[in-house]
């Protein structure tokens, strides 16, 4: 087991190097530089520009800048923001709980709806229910996430006025963050109505972010379930006189979960990518919005460091998923 984990961690090293090169070079391919964007509308003399670039160390050859950044990563230093001068890691730790809260709620929603929907569609194959579920999944999967978010805002916030448009909680409430999760913190604060407020702010972004994973999980569950329901061991379970609920829910589902778990693991990447759009639409103060703002400001250090941290999280989650796989499938215990 330990050997397996160490082996998997060793494979991550070249991946990290690859991500670091991409993060470093792609942001520099964009026209403009941080100094130019900081100066804004004001006109800056070329001398002053060169002076500031020199101060930031951005006039050095690219390979030196890269190894400087890589050296920092190895020692756990993710650099400091060019704009705010705060360490990247500190900002990340402060903003990440917001993204984590949103992503967790989204993936929980996607799992809780997607798996039952997929199972029902498979069991009632060919029925109107199956066709409705699969049709909805196809629409959900194909819909551009920013457009879907805007539609929901227009309808629920604008037309019906049920939910707020942006942010994490109403301005009427203020309390210091304890866990960083607004739902938990609002409960801990003891302020009346705070939890409800946090919840109404969370609903729409969660739905938007959950849409694609939900569609993927439902489709994957359905196809895995259809395959499993035709297996000999399902016939054996039926020949024991077990209830249909037990045959589908225990004997078939356990086997169908094996590919579904892999799919859920892959959705973590989709979630973090989706979070960038969702957080921007809903002004959700998480790392997605932080990354987008940093790209616009050409804050090289934040984009590089932030990408490395996000990549690290995705790889870690995939490792955990691989370990969970063994729990469900006895044939590949390590």
């Amino acid at each position, binding site marked *: 087991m330990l050997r397996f984990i160490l082996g998997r961690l060793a494979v991550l090293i070249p991946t990290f190097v690859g991500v670091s090169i991409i993060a470093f070079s792609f942001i520099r391919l964009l026209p403009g530089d941080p100094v130019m964007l900081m100066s804004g509308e004001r006109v800056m003399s070329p001398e002053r520009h060169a002076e500031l670039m020199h101060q930031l160390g951005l006039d050095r050859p690219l390979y030196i800048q890269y190894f400087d950044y890589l050296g920092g990563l190895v020692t756990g230093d993710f650099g400091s923001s060019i704009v705010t001068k705060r360490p990247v890691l500190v900002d990340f730790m402060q903003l990440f709980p917001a993204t984590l809260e949103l992503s967790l709620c989204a993936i929980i929603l996607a799992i809780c709806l997607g798996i039952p929907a997929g199972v029902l569609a498979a069991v009632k194959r060919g029925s109107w229910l199956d066709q409705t579920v699969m049709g909805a999944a196809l629409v959900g999967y194909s819909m551009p996430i920013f457009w879907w978010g805007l539609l929901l805002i227009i309808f629920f916030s604008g037309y019906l006025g049920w939910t707020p448009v942006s942010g994490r909680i109403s301005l009427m409430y203020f309390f210091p963050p304890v866990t960083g999760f607004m739902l938990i913190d609002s409960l801990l604060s003891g302020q009346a109505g705070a939890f409800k407020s946090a919840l109404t702010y969370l609903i729409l972004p969660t739905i938007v972010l959950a849409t694609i994973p939900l569609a993927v999980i439902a489709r994957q569950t359905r196809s895995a379930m259809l395959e499993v329901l035709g297996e*000999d061991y399902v*016939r*054996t379970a039926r*020949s024991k006189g*077990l209830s249909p609920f037990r045959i589908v829910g225990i004997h078939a589902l356990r086997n169908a979960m094996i590919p579904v778990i892999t799919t859920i693991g892959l959705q973590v990447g989709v979630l973090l990518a989706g979070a960038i759009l969702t957080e921007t639409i809903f002004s959700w103060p998480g790392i997605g919005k932080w990354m987008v703002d940093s790209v616009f400001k050409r804050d090289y250090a934040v984009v590089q460091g932030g990408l490395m941290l996000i990549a690290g999280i995705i790889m870690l989650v995939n490792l955990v998923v691989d370990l969970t796989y063994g729990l469900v499938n*006895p044939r590949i215990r390590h």
Partner: protein
Amino acid sequence: MSLLEIKNLTVEFETSSGLFRAVDGVSLSCDKGEILSIVGESGSGKSVSMLAVMGLLPWTAKITADRMAFDGKDLLKMSPRQRRKIIGKDIAMIFQEPMSSLNPCFTVGYQLGETLRFHMGLGRAARRQRSIELLRLVGIPAPEDRLSNYPHQMSGGMSQRVMIAMALACNPKLLIADEPTTALDVTIQAQILDLLVRLQKEHGMALVLITHDMGVVAETAERVQVQYAGQKVEEQPVKELFRDPHHPYTAALLSSLPERATVGGRLPSIPGVVPGQHDRPTGCLFSPRCTFATDLCRRSVTLQPPSLGSALCNYPLVGGVPQNHPGKTAALAEERA
């Protein structure tokens, strides 16, 4: 009264190109403590008729029968819930592919215990004890250790033993074995057959053995029913069947046994294949492959009395000679003389 009684069972499947009749008017009865064997080639509807009894056919199957009763109770009139109380308890079934018939995600102990919990309501300790007892009964060494095994950790023969143990869990009155040895090595085949026959005797249960292997029939069965293309073509006690088959199909099956072939000669085979959905002949279904077929056979077929094995044939064989056959009787009699 027989334990299992089926009259005129027909099973049809809805396919994209119309209805396919897999079982065509089959009747069958099996008494308490009896071994009945159903023989026939692949596609003769042996398994399908038994799956219909178990209620295990997919929803595309349409089942009709004049009567389908187990232990005096009409299976067709039961609700699915009532039927599930009998299935797995009083009627149990084992299948052809033991390796894929066990659920790969659960331990042997869990899968065995499930039946005991739902039909007998046994507690955890009692289930474990009974499971060990069952595994010992089917000849599995160190049963205590096997309980925590997963199916992939066992061989085919071992898996089939576990399947048999699972089937026997609630002391069924009827065990249906669907080609239980086909997927196993020859040496293991004999062991599993011996085990089935021994358990059948010890527990006094009825056994319906589905097979395409006449050798297996000779070794185990008491009464034999021969099926062809979804129809029952002959029914006789095993000794009589082997001595004097009345249907040309049975005779052809028997003569293709290697044990019966003359030394050095070519092993006889039946030309052609079982008709499918699109090449179903009129009259006798065996007529395209039968050496005695006449124009009458291609139009219609007669059911013979039980004294002639209830053979579904216009010219049933007696002593290898087709009765009342317009052409061949004289020639054959001459040949034999």
